[in-house]
């Protein structure tokens, strides 16, 4: 049996910036344990001599010319059109300095 504790859920939730309450922590701990149980079958395979595959395109170092393409750019109005809060053409973002962490 693979164990996953509510405390681990809390830690991961914090890393992932996902708000989770105590009740959900217990449920998610069980979900994660179940999933980790299913994927444990990979340990049956010997991959000690195998290189990982990170992508399947066969392409390497895809470059483009370092020049500005106006058609691909948003205007300031377009860029902020979907933002919930703006001020004078800028995004308003949550405070991250001097934040009350309690």
């Amino acid at each position, binding site marked *: 049996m693979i164990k996953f504790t509510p405390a681990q859920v809390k830690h991961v939730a914090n890393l992932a*910036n996902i708000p989770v309450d105590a009740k959900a922590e217990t449920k998610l701990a069980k979900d994660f344990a179940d*999933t980790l149980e299913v994927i444990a079958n990979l*340990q049956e395979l010997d991959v000690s001599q195998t290189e990982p595959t*990170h992508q*399947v395109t066969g392409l390497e170092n895809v470059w483009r010319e370092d020049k500005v393409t106006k058609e691909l750019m948003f205007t300031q109005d377009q860029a902020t059109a979907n933002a919930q809060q703006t001020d004078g053409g800028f995004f308003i973002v949550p405070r991250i300095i001097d934040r009350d962490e309690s």
Partner: protein
Amino acid sequence: MGDFLLYPELLTEMNPKHLNSLTIVQALKALAKKQISIDEIYESVNLAVKNNQNLNIYLSLNSQAQKQAQKANKTNLPLAGLPIAVKDNYCTKGLKTTASAKVLDNFIPEFDATVIQHLQKAGGVVLGKTNMDAWAHGSSTETSDYGRTLNPRNPDYLPGGSSGGTAAAVAANTCIAGLGTETAGSIRQPSAWCGVVGLKPTYGRVSRSGIVAMASSTDSPGPITKTVTDAALLLQQIAGLDLKDSTTNPVPVPDFAQDLKRGIGDLKIGLLYHDVPELKKVMNLIEPELKVFERLGAHLEPVKALDPHYAISVYTIVQRAEVSSNLARYTGVRYGLDRSHFAAEARRRIMLGTFTLSKGYADQYYKTAQKVRTLYRQDFAKLFGHYDLLISLSSPGFAKKIGVTAGEAMFGELEDLILEPSSIVGLPGLNVPCYRDPKTNLFLGLNIMAPMWREDLILRAGYAFEQATNWNEWAKND
């Protein structure tokens, strides 16, 4: 009138109400001969959309569709203004794009995805945006934040997913053709469940630019259509190198229609996963269908492949890792709502991905998964050394009943068991209907796979199978 004899069902179609059931090929021919008008097609399709509202297929409709179609029709473009159902994870300028997720409930893109630009350039029109599993996380559409879609073949059942809305749109004749996306099964599985044709192109054949990202190393946009010929036509219009997606490939796009009708007499085909226990119940149903390939002159034999159950694990790890990274962008600052709006499935996936990438676990999970991915690449390379094509079922069984996914954290992965191996290595695959249960009216689909960049081969085989069998009603007059 004489020409209508070629299309028996068109005899009744002087009544525009049935033009919604036309394929792309049939509609283009009838439009070219001025037997019908683009407005009549839209009247008929709009009526079908209205009559099928109970199925919850479309999340939003393009109010300008008919106007855009008239314009496209006048300018002689290849798709002549035909109405296309588009999965709601394609960004569409000025038209709400949610990926069925509440986080994007208020998102109206300022630009079109590359595929949508290609579609419009070819005269295709976005009719509306279709329901899906939220963020494409699932194989049922039950995880949509806007309610599940019902299967038009039998509304007690699910359409599959994640492109379930588009597959249902095509099956219900509420469009002429559709667009979906697949990461591991999301085009082929709903196509199988809804009894339609679905083509998952080679990874990198079609641009991902402007599509709400799920797992970037396997995401593949592609057509969901009524016939194989339509899939070839639509792929032709959307494929190709895109400088906005550096994983698209400079390999030339062939003319997919060219060899479509050449037959498969010269092909050697391997049958995969026939002995996987989950498939036992349905394999015997398609035995006679497999004989069709031999009747058409191909050589078909069962072949042993690497157990697909390992691919479930590879996919689960890789997909969630990429999801945790891709969905980190949703902070509610630039667009969309904040992270408290993620529903249960997205939370689970983001958090598990964060875990498998975290210090101390990345080697055990993520790196191991990527190594096993290599084993699948090697296995497929070996198989394609002996066979031109590989076939299997598209899904372990028929569509499942509504409500079945409740509390099932691994539903999608287990459903997509036989599609995951080819997905994680980027291969193209085509679903064609291969059986219908007369009691439930539900379908099974055949999954035809080829080496990278050989969509031409799977289309050829799919077309030959479709024409040699009676499972696809639309293909009868192709």
